[in-house]
């Protein structure tokens, strides 16, 4: 921040730094609690732990004892990836349409598109099950994806929308005037500009699906057992430490993925601009 500082700026700069540090503490603190708890030597979730061990990770990866967790994790990942793909695609198209149009419909459409965000998941889950049962459709993988995608799309729409709102219309007009096809304009002009928003949107949609409890509760079935529902049961009745270990694995995998992709494509830089 040094290049921005003028002589009278010390106080505001210190305040900004202090708040930023507090923000980091609040963001990271609870995650540290979870990770530390996952190494506890106690038989049940306990913080602070009396001692440290890798035992719960061994149990979590045990193909026999944790088979059901693995199955649920596989289901949840598959659903979340499918949901992220659909949600981001639908949201990017819609966000560009809205941003490029000054018409009144666009404003109304945006409000409507965001509506699923504000319906409590439990009510939405109940309503979808009633609706699909009425259509005589039993719970299935694709209904689960559809239900999750409706909840996840607004997240993507909002972040892509924020990027698209800043698109310079004259740039696009220039591209069209120079004879570029709409697809080429999208590929060469728009996409590079909105990539941070799209990446953030896809990520949010993925996580929203991965962590969804209420919709899965109704649209899940014996053959589509979902991870959060399973972890919830393990935690509620027996304070099973594998729940914390599962979170530890998720954080580690995401961390590694970020590092690897950063090395390969500079994703972090891209997300950050």
């Amino acid at each position: 921040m040094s290049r921005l500082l003028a002589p009278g700026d010390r106080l505001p700069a210190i305040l900004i730094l202090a708040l930023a540090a507090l923000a980091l503490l609040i963001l990271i603190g609870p995650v540290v609690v979870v990770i530390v708890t996952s190494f506890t030597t106690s038989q049940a979730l306990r913080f602070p732990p009396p001692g440290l061990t890798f035992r719960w990770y061994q149990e979590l990866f045990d193909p026999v004892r944790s088979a059901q967790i693995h199955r649920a994790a596989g289901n949840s990942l598959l659903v979340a990836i499918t949901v992220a793909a659909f949600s981001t695609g639908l949201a990017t198209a819609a966000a560009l349409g809205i941003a490029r149009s000054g018409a009144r419909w666009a404003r109304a459409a945006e409000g409507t598109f965001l509506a699923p965000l504000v319906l409590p998941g439990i009510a939405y889950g109940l309503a979808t099950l009633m609706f699909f049962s009425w259509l005589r459709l039993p719970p299935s993988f694709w209904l689960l994806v559809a239900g999750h995608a409706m909840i996840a799309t607004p997240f993507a729409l909002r972040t892509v929308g924020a990027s698209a709102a800043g698109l310079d219309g004259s740039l696009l007009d220039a591209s069209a005037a120079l004879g570029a096809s709409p697809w080429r304009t999208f590929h060469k002009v728009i996409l590079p500009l909105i990539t941070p928003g799209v990446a953030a949107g896809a990520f949010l949609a993925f996580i929203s699906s991965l962590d969804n409890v209420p919709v899965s509760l109704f649209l899940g079935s014996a053959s589509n057992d979902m991870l959060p529902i399973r972890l919830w049961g393990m935690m509620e009745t027996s304070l099973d430490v594998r729940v914390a270990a599962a979170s530890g694995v998720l954080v580690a995998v995401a961390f590694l993925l970020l590092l690897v992709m950063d090395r390969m494509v500079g994703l972090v830089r891209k997300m950050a601009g």
Partner: protein
Amino acid sequence: MEPKGAWRLALPLALAQVLFFLAPLLILAATSLATDENLSAVSGQAWAEVLGDSFNLGAAWNTLRLGAMTVLATTVLAVPLALLHLAAGPGLKKLILLAAVLPLLTSVVVRTFAWIAILGREGVINNALIATGLATAPVPLLQTEHGLILALTQIEMPLMLLPLIAAMARIDPVLLDASAALGASLLRTLRRVVLPIALPGLLAGATLVFASAATAFISQSVIGGGRLAYLPYLVWQQAMVVFNWPLAAALALTLMASVLAVVTALSALGRKVAHV
């Protein structure tokens, strides 16, 4: 890409929503106006119970206030962090982005336990307060509105930070240098250069945080506890325990309508700002 055909781009999402969102929503609306879940007869009973009852209306007010307080808290913390990210070198940038997504990676299930461990009477904060002599007895934090807002601030902060950072990424560093070189103070640069570009991101974040905090049923009920009444829990209770689906549907639609009103206002503001 001419604006004339722009509406076609929104068509796929619109169709998907009619099929998978609007139709279930209509069933919900019909249920709220019926005597039971089989829609045997029409009745205004459920709506009368929601709108004519100070406890239910109070819960609605609490829910909106909780969303607003969470937006306020996340804004106060996320804006400085996003600024730090803007000014930071590549290493620190990476760290901040990683921290920004961390809360999303700990499942809602285990997060509730972490907050019990932090806010409880023998928890991290109380132990620290007593060890440093700032308090002599445990301060009640768990199951208070303050404790809940703190927890929600962590949980929802990514939804504020990510759009904010994405929006700020479009700021041209040359502009910042120029502003400083011209002798503008830090606050003036922030107000004149950074804020106008970051505002759509801020409003996007506020929308997501508000809606998510107001409907965060598991965090509200587990960290907030049974003494704080919020609408999502009442919806769940009426739907799943009491089986009064008309009332559950009416409560759900009340929550949806009130949150949607706030979100639409934020969206309108966002468009206005973007077109200035």
